[in-house]
């Protein structure tokens, strides 16, 4: 049940916040340099996979560590901790012709949001 959060704990709360990082060992399926594709899913509940990257090809840049999975946590169906990766997409892959070919978009994607892709984008 919810309780009152007292002013006594406030300094500590502001200083430490509440990281969604989880201190558990979870195997990582990807590493920097891997070609990946964002999955095409359309859940009717919460997800942090925006529509504009679904189905697009990108490259893993960095492993950010293990975090709570929003899709399940928002439904109180468990934290399902998993790796989050910084993934880069070219503007051309996301938006087609007419963009500056140098431009890129970086986004943090949970393990469940990406699958291996054989071909580089």
């Amino acid at each position, binding site marked *: 049940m919810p309780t009152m959060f007292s002013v006594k704990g406030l300094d500590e709360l502001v200083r430490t916040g509440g990281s969604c990082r989880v201190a558990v060992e979870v195997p990582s399926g990807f590493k920097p340099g891997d070609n990946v594709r964002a999955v095409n899913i359309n859940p009717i509940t919460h997800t942090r996979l925006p529509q504009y990257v679904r189905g697009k090809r990108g490259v893993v840049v960095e492993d950010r560590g293990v975090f709570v999975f929003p899709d399940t946590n928002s439904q109180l169906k468990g934290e399902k901790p998993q790796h*989050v990766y910084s993934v880069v997409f070219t503007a051309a892959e996301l938006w087609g012709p007419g963009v500056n070919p140098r431009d*890129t978009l970086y986004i943090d994607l949970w393990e469940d949001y990406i699958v291996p892709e054989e071909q580089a984008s």
Partner: protein
Amino acid sequence: MTKDHDDHHDHDHDHDHEHRRPDVALRVKAIESLLVEKNLLDPEAVDKLIDLYEHKIGPRNGARVVARAWTDPDYKARLLKDGTAAIAEFGYSGIQGEDMVVLENTPGVHNMVVCTLCSCYPWPTLGLPPNWYKAAPYRSRAVIDPRGVLEEFGITISSEIEVRVWDSNAELRYLVLPMRPAGTEGMSEDELAELVTRDSMIGVGFPVQP
């Protein structure tokens, strides 16, 4: 500006908005009074939080981090390697800054930050976000037309330079480390911090050119 003047200004602003959303103001008031009555809300904590984020936590924090990075190469290296830890050296940490990543602008790369899905923003270093950051025009277009958005901020990025957009859709929070302006050799860290604008740390502006 005197303190009195500040308060007066706030008050005028408040009046406009209360007037525009009287129903919302009343609704929030009702919820607050119910939560306090049910012993679920500590009024002292409410007042203290408002004071913290209205008067104490803001972009001057981030400016100090940037100025230090401009003057201390070892600090800059730590900042780019582990943003959270290096920012915490100043005592800046916590809510909406639990996992910080610092993005270095270079002659070849210009970084800018958006949260397309809501309003994620690094509170400990920048304070609470301005309304435009949370509103549909910026959130919708920053990813598909970043150069057009930057033009609206009065900034033109050469087509030779990569514009790198960061969607802070997850739990990482981003701070842009802008390039140190030319002609600032010999300036102190405190003087440099005065040049660092909030927008330059979001990537939609440049530091002030002295």
